[in-house]
C-alpha cells in the first residue's frame, strides 16, 4: 500500500506526539522537578506537533497526470514536422520519433496550384502551404511545453510525497532514539529540490529536437517520462536530533523548505506555460494560420469562377 498523505500523516502526527511524551519523560528523568517540567514541555511540544502536517493532507496525485502525459505524447507524434527524441524511462536511452512526413502534403498541394491564376490559389500557396510546416512546428513546440509542464507537475508531487513519507517516519524514529548515546546525526535528502524544471517558453522559435534529453534523474513513475531540466538533484539537510524540542523544530523547518520548493517549482512551471501563452498571443499567426479563402470557396453557388481558384 502506497503512502497516502490524507490518512498516513495524521496517524504519524499522533504517533509522534505519543513517542515525544515518552522521550521527554526519559530525557528529564532524574532531574529536579522533572515531573512538572516534563508536563510543561510535553504540552508545548504537543501544541507544536498538532496540525504540523495539515498543509500536506490534500495533495495532487502524480498518477492523475498519467493519461494526459501519454495522450499529449500521441499528439506530438502526429504534429512533428522534424522529429524529436525523449527519455521515457529512468536510465533509458532517448526514444527517437521520426518526422511525420504526411504533413508536407500541405506545402506540396500549394505547389500544385501555384501556377493557377486565381487569387485564392495564390494566397493558399503563399500564405498557407508555404508556411504550414513552420506553423505546425510552433504547435508542436506548444504541445511539447505543455506535456513536459504537466509531467513536471507530476514530478513535484511525486517527490514531495516521497519527502513527506520519509520525513514523517524519520521524525518518529529520531524521537524514539533521542536519548540514545549512539544515535548519530539526522541527515536527510529532500528530493523535491530536484524536481525543478528548466522548461523554456519556446513556441514560435526554433524546432525542438532533443529537449528532454537534457533531463537527468527524476523519472515520474506514473508517466514513465523523465523531467526536463536539472532534475534528480537532492538537497541534503542535517537536522537537529539532540532533544525532543530540537526534533520538532527541525521537522518544522524541513516542512517549511518543502513548502517553499513546491511553490518555487510550480512557479517555474507556470512561468514556462505563461511564457508560451504570451508567445502565442504576441504572434498568433505563427501559431495558427489565417483561414485561407480557398477553404470558404462558395461551392454551392454552382459557378466555378466564384471559387477564385482560377485556371492552370
Amino acid at each position, binding site marked *: 500500500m502506497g503512502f497516502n498523505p490524507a490518512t498516513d500523516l495524521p496517524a504519524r502526527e499522533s504517533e509522534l506526539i505519543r513517542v515525544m511524551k515518552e522521550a521527554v519523560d526519559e530525557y528529564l528523568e532524574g532531574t529536579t522537578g522533572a515531573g512538572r517540567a516534563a508536563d510543561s514541555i510535553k504540552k508545548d511540544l504537543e501544541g507544536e506537533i498538532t496540525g504540523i502536517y495539515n498543509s500536506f493532507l490534500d495533495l495532487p496525485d502524480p498518477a492523475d497526470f498519467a493519461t494526459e502525459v501519454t495522450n499529449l505524447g500521441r499528439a506530438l507524434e502526429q504534429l512533428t514536422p522534424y522529429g524529436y527524441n525523449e527519455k521515457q524511462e529512468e536510465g533509458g536511452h532517448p526514444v527517437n520519433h521520426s518526422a511525420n512526413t504526411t*504533413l508536407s*502534403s500541405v506545402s506540396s498541394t500549394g505547389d500544385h496550384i501555384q501556377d493557377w491564376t486565381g487569387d485564392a490559389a495564390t494566397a493558399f500557396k503563399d500564405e498557407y502551404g508555404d508556411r504550414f510546416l513552420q506553423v505546425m512546428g510552433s504547435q508542436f513546440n506548444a504541445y511539447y511545453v505543455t506535456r513536459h509542464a504537466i509531467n513536471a507537475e507530476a514530478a513535484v508531487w511525486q517527490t514531495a510525497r516521497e519527502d513527506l513519507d520519509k520525513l514523517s517516519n524519520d521524525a518518529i524514529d529520531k524521537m524514539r532514539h533521542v536519548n540514545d548515546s549512539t544515535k548519530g546525526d539526522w541527515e536527510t535528502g529532500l528530493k523535491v529540490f530536484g524536481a525543478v524544471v528548466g522548461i523554456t517558453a519556446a513556441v514560435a522559435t526554433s524546432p525542438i529536437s532533443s529537449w528532454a534529453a537534457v533531463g537527468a534523474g527524476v523519472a515520474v513513475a506514473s508517466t514513465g517520462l523523465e523531467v526536463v531540466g536539472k532534475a534528480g538533484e537532492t538537497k541534503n539537510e542535517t537536522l537537529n536530533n539532540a532533544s525532543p524540542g530540537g526534533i520538532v523544530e527541525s521537522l518544522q523547518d524541513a516542512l517549511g523548505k518543502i513548502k517553499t520548493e513546491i511553490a518555487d517549482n510550480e512557479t517555474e512551471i507556470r512561468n514556462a506555460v505563461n511564457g508560451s501563452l504570451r508567445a502565442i498571443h504576441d504572434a498568433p499567426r505563427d501559431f495558427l494560420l489565417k483561414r485561407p479563402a480557398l477553404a470558404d470557396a462558395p461551392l454551392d453557388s454552382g459557378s466555378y469562377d466564384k471559387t477564385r*481558384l482560377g485556371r492552370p
Partner: protein
Amino acid sequence: MGKSGEDLGIELGRVYKAGYTLLPEVANEVRTAWVNTPVSVSSSTARGSGLGSDPGPALDSMLDELNQATKETEEVLRDVGAALVWCCLNYDRMDQAAQTEFDRQRKVVEG
C-alpha cells in the same frame, strides 16, 4: 493561354488527388492530435490549504489554445480539400482529351 488537352487532365488529376487524398490524410493526423488533447488538468492540480503555486489555470488556458489550433487546422484542411475536389469535378473548360485523362487519373486516385 492556359493548359489544355492531356496536360490539363494531368494537372486536374494532381489537384484532385491533393483534395481527395492528401489533405484529408493530413487532416486525419491533426485530428488524432486533437482527440488526444486534454480539455483541462486543473482538477488534478487542485490542492487544499493554499499550498504551492497552482499552475492549473495556466495549463487549462494552454490546452484551450492547443484544442482550438488543432481543431481549426483540421477543419481548414478538410474544407480546402473539398474545394479542390469540387473545382476539379466542376471545371468548365475541359476538352475531350482533358476529360479523358482526368477521368483516368480520378479512377486511380479513388482506387
